[in-house]
């Protein structure tokens, strides 16, 4: 090979160069969003605060109960990042994970009230309540909602739904109460999952085997287009991190989506339920950003 031969230029597509956020586990996701070296983990895996209920039902628990809490800074502003591990029991909320989440948010509220505004970032990959923990899981979600309402008056609560589990059930309410929602096109957000709707209302209502239909309803693109989520970002760590940083800087919201009851009531009233509403028409009907800025 002569030294004169030119190095061939290979064009690498953009998606190959991406650093996937989805492929990270909960802990690595949380770490990737904080200023490096600024964070410490609260109630980490070596504390072994596990679910006491799962082993009684023949299910292996996890040492952090699927909930990772990091306290540190984002763009030099105090923040707490709470990440649910979608790989463990579908990120479901149990007694322990619920208490960790609520405790972390309440500490952020206390700090904010004492003058240190502390933002919260929720990384939600979750199917909602952990059914094996029944009422304790439901109670955890109720407490969580109270904590979200308290904190969001002082500091922004930023929910990131990256995928691939998505955010469903009771935890979609937590997402709805947060100040901002960031989604990727792979992410899904909804109250009832497709299989639940099909089971309750029949396959004519929702064919849960139709993946393109599922993403056309629940997917990040549609949700952001409808104004029920705020930002659509590609599955790339720097892109997700910079969206989070921007919203931390934006600060607390003056009017939250969940306060705009009349707006959403009006939109629902305007829907003609006599005929099946398809994803494109839903996108068109709701195509104004719902959140006040």
């Amino acid at each position: 090979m002569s030294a004169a031969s030119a190095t061939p230029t290979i064009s690498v597509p953009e998606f190959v160069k991406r650093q996937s956020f989805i492929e990270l586990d909960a802990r690595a996701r949380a770490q990737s969003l904080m200023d490096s070296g600024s964070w410490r983990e609260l109630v980490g895996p070596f504390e072994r605060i596990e679910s006491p209920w799962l082993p009684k039902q023949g299910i292996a628990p996890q040492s952090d109960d699927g909930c990772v809490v990091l306290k540190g800074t984002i763009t030099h502003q105090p923040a707490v990042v709470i990440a649910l591990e979608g790989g463990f029991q579908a990120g479901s909320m149990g007694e322990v994970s619920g208490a960790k989440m609520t405790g972390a948010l309440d500490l952020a509220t206390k700090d904010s009230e004492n003058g240190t505004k502390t933002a919260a970032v929720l990384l939600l990959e979750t199917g909602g309540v952990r059914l094996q923990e029944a009422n304790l899981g439901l109670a955890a979600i109720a407490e969580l909602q109270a904590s979200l309402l308290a904190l969001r008056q002082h500091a922004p609560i930023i929910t990131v739904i990256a995928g691939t589990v998505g955010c469903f059930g009771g935890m979609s309410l937590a997402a709805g109460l947060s100040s901002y929602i960031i989604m990727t096109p792979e992410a899904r957000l909804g109250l009832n999952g497709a299989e639940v709707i099909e089971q309750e209302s029949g396959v004519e209502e929702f064919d849960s085997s139709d993946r393109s239909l599922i993403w056309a309803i629940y997917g990040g693109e549609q949700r952001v287009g409808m104004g029920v989520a705020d930002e659509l970002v590609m599955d790339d760590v720097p892109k997700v991190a910079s969206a989070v940083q921007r919203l931390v800087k934006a600060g607390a919201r003056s009017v939250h989506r969940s306060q705009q009851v009349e707006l959403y009531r009006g939109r629902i009233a305007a829907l003609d339920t006599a005929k099946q509403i398809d994803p494109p028409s839903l996108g068109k009907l709701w195509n104004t950003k719902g959140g006040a800025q």
Partner: protein
Amino acid sequence: MERLEFDYPSANRPVTNKAHVGVVGSGDMEVLMQPAEEGIAHVSVLTSVNGFGKSWQAVLDRFFAKHDRAVRIHINDAGATPGSVILRLEQAMEVIDQ
């Protein structure tokens, strides 16, 4: 649900770090590895799959034959195969030695 305990008295080369790897998802497990207080290796396993004590013994014997380290290991297992188990253990050891 089964809890298994193993001791490796000859594994006594000290470690200073700790490591946490893996997720308790179907066919996977998590490993918590840290310095053993007694100076010899000890393993506790909590597994949702009963009746595989001998397989655990064989995999752990093999691991400690390679790494004679004084570690305390706890495993929460959701049905990891022996191949996955050894990979997770090696991964934890790699993190400890970083």
